[in-house]
């Protein structure tokens, strides 16, 4: 399948998910070719202290987000699950599974600051099979922790 056509299908799927199946897109979710914007709210954060007591290398953190489009509806449209392993006292290597109605997206990478980070979209299942790109996440509020997730899919 041509790369451009595949990217179009991915974006269409995300847009359809966001609009038709309840995935939250912000006021203008589609900001350009291959760009989707969602909002998320952290619902749980669990840290498993595996090394020396306190946060340190080897600790594992599991974070769950609900994904929203608050302008359209207040109920969650999907969810994201982070599984992170601390590589330093504050940096983590994370794998994120984003659950969407028509499949899943898988993203991963290093997170230094929780407030602003960027992950690579590594692939996906079903409609998002072989998806590529990045997702940039910026925190908007601290309590509760909310983020804007900006997907830039290139293929």
């Amino acid at each position, binding site marked *: 399948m041509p790369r451009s056509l595949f990217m179009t299908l991915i974006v269409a799927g995300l847009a359809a998910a966001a609009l038709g199946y309840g995935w939250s897109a912000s006021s203008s979710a589609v900001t350009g070719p291959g760009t989707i914007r969602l909002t998320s709210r952290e619902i749980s954060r669990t840290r498993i202290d595996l090394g020396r007591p306190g946060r340190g290398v080897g600790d594992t953190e599991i974070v769950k987000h609900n994904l929203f489009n608050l302008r359209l509806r207040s109920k969650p449209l999907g969810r994201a699950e982070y599984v992170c392993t601390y590589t330093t006292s504050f940096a983590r290597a994370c794998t994120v599974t984003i659950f969407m109605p028509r499949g899943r997206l898988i993203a991963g990478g290093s997170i230094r600051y929780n407030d602003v980070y960027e992950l690579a979209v590594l692939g996906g299942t079903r409609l998002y099979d072989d998806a590529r790109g990045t997702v940039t996440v*910026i925190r908007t509020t*601290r309590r509760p922790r909310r983020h804007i997730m900006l997907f830039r899919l290139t293929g």
Partner: protein
Amino acid sequence: MSLSARMIAASVILAVLVAGGFGVLISAMSALDDAKQREAHSKDVAVAALALEKLFGDLVTGERGFILTGEQRFLQPWTEARKELDRRVLEFEQLSAANPEQLQRARQLSAAIRDYVLFYSEPLIEVARTNRAAARGEVAEAESKRLTDEIRRRFDTFRSEEDALAAASASSADRQSDRAIGLAVTGLVVCAVLIVLFGVYLARSTARPVRAVATAASRLAAGDLSTRLSRGGPGEVGELTAAFNRMAEELELSRAELESQNEQLRQSERRKSELVRIVSHELRTPLASVLGFTSVLLDRDVPPEEQRHYLDIVNSQARRLSSLLNDFLDAERLEEGELELSPKLIDMGAVVAEQVQLYKGQSAKHMLDAALPPTPLPVHGDPNRLAQVIGNLLSNAIKYSPDGGTVHIEAEQVDSVIRVSVRDQGLGIPEELQQRVFAKFFRGDADVSGIPGTGLGLTIARSVVEAHGGRMNFESARGQGSVFWLELPIAANGP
């Protein structure tokens, strides 16, 4: 169509064409104005785009300043730009509304700026308030660069498109200007050509015919009355040429009449001269006889028998003089149309018989043979004048038969007329002279032949017959004698 109507029609057509030309010119000028307005609008849009880009630059600058320093004062440009943003975006979109594609680009650009502010700039500033390191980290910086690059790329695209539109408008304005100038020049040339053609038409339809009339009038004034103009021409010109031709014809007729009258005057003059000559000649002979014989009678002692003979001659010559004077008077009356008749019912046979009887003894060499019907031949006429006519015919028959012979006189009723004919065996009349036999003072070869007369007898005779409603003519051939005849209408109730 008359000339004036043609000229009016030509003027109207010319005016319509000129008005049409000006209409096209005005349309071209209007299009030029529109193109200039589009060009000016493009400049306004470009200015609005630059203002919005500057505002966006203030947003980015303020945001970066705050993130880098953490000082609130560096956020001031961002705060002010944030307040201005909605108004400027609205203004920008409104100005871009003239072109749908640019409007779409403007809306996308506005949305990108709003998204930048709402989903990047504001959250990042919020992050910076608590975690400045995260806000100025490479991820934030890269994201900022991506977003601002994208927005600036959109600005570039929008501006380049607007520049292209402005250039197209300018080019269109130039084209419209060239077109307007071209149309104006073409219109002027066409109008000039039309005016020249109109002038040529006027010259051909008016000036040329008028010049032809003037030339013909000059020729006419110079005496060439046969001058005519060729018929035709539009309307009034045709009427002018027709009137000129009528005038020339009238002048030619008048001149012909004048010439005819002159000729008649000359003829009259010649006739008077002839009359004087004839009168002198005709009167001289009997007067000479009268004078001669009376002198003899007075001067000599003449025997009585001879006296009587001389007195008979004097008497005869006096009668001849009287007859001549009567003829002249009659000719004069005929000339004046004052021939008087005293008509009454008479027997034409009796009139003829009386005249035959009178002329029988006048010539020993001639014999008068009268053939008259036993019944009366009634006509309504003047007996003296009709007797004068018959006497003239008999006298001529005798005079123009110098060798003698028989003169046949016949009177009869033929249908509704009384016909009298006098046939002689005399000289006859040559064919070339026959047309003038009844003309006054015409005597043919009589002068040469020494035959006396005035040349008035036949003229008077024919006039008398015609005054009675009849006609008179003759048949003759040289050397074969002549037949003179007259016909008078028969009277309704005979005597």
